[in-house]
């Protein structure tokens, strides 16, 4: 027996709706984006590890909008085997899929005195391999349907390997390149792939990070930028915007200098 579909408002020509999936929605940018997209009329499937946070978020969204706009799906991004079934169920529950936001990300800054293999491995498993697990099948579907939008939250940290956190740098660099590859593969099929590279954004992750955090911005500012870029179907954005120029400089610092810097 097919599972009963949850009671979402039915789409009609006079009440159309877009369907979105946010992976990594329980906190940070994912959560704020969920609120924002629901307000803009999206029907959302929200995926996160932490059930309590996720359910609270969905209740908040549904109450604020006066109707069911968000459905919770508890899932750990590194449980790759669950993905095909869960994805199919989500698309069926939503009745379609227009936009996917991959916002799942962890950061385990290494303690210089210890080996960080476990942390590095987890960062790779969530930030990068999690993206493969979810975005590979979604890319195939969007390519086949000749429409859709994929948004990946990468980071300025992926632009250069630095002293402090090689694992995180690697995971985000990998994600950036993966998204670029998807873009090159999918643009010709009418699919938009947006890479978001935030600077420092005041989320839980930032609290755990170490070192100086110049120009940190509130989450709402970052998500507003992301939504604007989504509507304009951009390829890549830095948020806030000036990181584009900062990273332009940093990317172009010659190695002979960069390897002597403590940054």
């Amino acid at each position, binding site marked *: *027996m*097919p*599972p009963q*579909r949850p009671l979402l408002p*039915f*789409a*009609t*020509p*006079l*009440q*159309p709706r877009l369907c979105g999936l946010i992976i990594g929605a329980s906190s940070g940018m994912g959560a704020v984006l969920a609120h924002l997209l629901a307000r803009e009329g999206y029907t959302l499937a929200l995926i996160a590890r932490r059930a309590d946070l996720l359910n609270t978020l969905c209740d908040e969204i549904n109450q604020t909008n006066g109707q069911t706009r968000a459905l919770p799906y508890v899932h750990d991004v590194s449980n790759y085997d669950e993905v*095909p079934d869960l994805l*199919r*169920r989500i*698309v*069926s*529950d*939503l*009745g*379609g*899929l227009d936009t996917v936001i991959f916002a799942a990300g962890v950061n385990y800054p290494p303690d210089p005195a210890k080996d960080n293999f476990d942390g590095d491995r987890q960062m790779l498993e969530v930030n990068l391999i999690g993206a493969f697990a979810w975005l590979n*099948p979604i890319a*195939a*579907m*969007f390519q*086949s*349907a*000749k*429409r859709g939008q994929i948004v990946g939250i990468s980071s300025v940290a992926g632009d250069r390997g630095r002293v402090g956190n090689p694992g995180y740098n690697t995971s985000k660099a990998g994600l950036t390149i993966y998204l670029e590859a998807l873009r090159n593969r999918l643009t010709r099929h009418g699919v938009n792939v947006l890479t978001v590279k935030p600077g420092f954004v005041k989320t839980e992750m930032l609290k755990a990070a170490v070192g100086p955090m110049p120009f940190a911005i509130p989450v709402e500012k970052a998500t507003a930028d992301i939504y604007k870029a989504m509507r304009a179907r951009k390829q890549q954005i830095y948020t806030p915007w000036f990181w584009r120029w900062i990273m332009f400089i940093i990317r172009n610092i010659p190695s002979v200098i960069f390897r002597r810097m403590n940054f």
Partner: protein
Amino acid sequence: MVYRQPSMVIELNLMDITLNNTFTSLENFGHSLRAPAYVFKPTSAEEISEAFQLAKKTGLTVTARGAGRSYNDASLNGGGIVLEMSAMNKIINWDPATGQVRAEPGVTIQQLWQSIEPEGWWPPVVSGTMFTTLGGCLSANVHGKNNFKVGTIGEHVLEFTAILPTGAEVTCSPKKNADLFYAMISGLGMLGVFTSITLQMKRIYSGLLEVDARPSHNLHEHLTDLLDNAPNYDYIVGWLDTTAGGKSLGRGQIHAARYLNENEDPNAKNTLLLKNQSLPSRIFGVFPKSILHYFMSPFVNNLGTWGVNTGKYIASLPRYTFRESHAAFHFLLDYIPNWELSFGRGGLIEYQSFVPKETAEAAWMEMLRLSHKRGLPPYLGVTKRHRPDKFLLTHAVDGFSLAIDFKVTNSNRKKLSAMLQEFDKIVLDAGGRFYFVKNSETSPESATRFLGEETIAKFKKLKKRCDPNGILESDLYRRVFG
């Protein structure tokens, strides 16, 4: 859209990859609704059965889709499996001696009439477009401009075979499995999928119809004409200038036609030829019609349609009689290819109400006045005369139908939605009904009111019997019966 055999899918366990690669963006005919689905194109009953198995295994639902010409969500199944029936498009048997034709469900009305017309036969009932499929026509139980005389297409079905989600194959006729016969025709594809359809065709003695055209100066005159004159003709259809107000509210034109008898057409042999039935592809012999919709779109707004409707009304003032080919008379909607695209990015919706003859005039006067007051005049209005039928989810009444088209834009959605809710109330209070494949906003409450709880319970009981696992579901079904 590439067909992959479901059996291979199940056995090799390539299901996920394969399913993802069948994901297709589907729309309604009016381009006002979009619902992507995993699309398969079955070529036989076995393959439909395999799709049911795939659905069971994956927990997905299935909807059959004919040509996708319904104005709403009847052939959409967002996030589920859609069986595009276009590959099952063979005419299995055609007997010009008896006029009986047996065909697969993906055969279109166009294919059908073009196969039989040169031999002096015509489908007894056709829709306003020839691109619909027989399976879709039966599921919706379509009617033509002769509904008052010959009923819906279902009344001309001698027999059909279908495959049920349980895997059982059934044969139904008015005598055999009659309950299923009367429920599957009009059943919106929710009980099973047709695999073959046997229809009785109508003999014709000329490729032409004799058409009388005359104006009507207001809605009262219009409906009186439809009522009084229908018995004298084989076909009758009215056009309403829905943009005219005041005393002229509901003014329009009537086209009434009759078949020509034997010997009435001296050139019958010639007029029956297919080349004399085709719609011209160019206007004035030069202007290609395939791009005409681009030139129409600047006029598809309140002012533009007022101008076009007024012009058309003035042109329709003289009374005249002429002879016209069957195809030209029936398939008005196909005159301008892709005309629906001229309604812009938001697409269009159609609102068709079927109201008893006693209450129709008052109800529609109220509706037209309301639409003018709200600044949302319909851009096109078509009337027909109807008679009731025995099918379970019937839309017909002893009265008239009025179909009106609205353009959907980002700014008018809320207003239009509120107005259609008021329309629903007017129609239901007048004892009217709706047509499921046209109206996109019919609520479960409205459906219950005109069908009656008993009918719905009967339909659901049959559904339980044919489809115990709830595999067949369309967006329409979930919206109205879910």
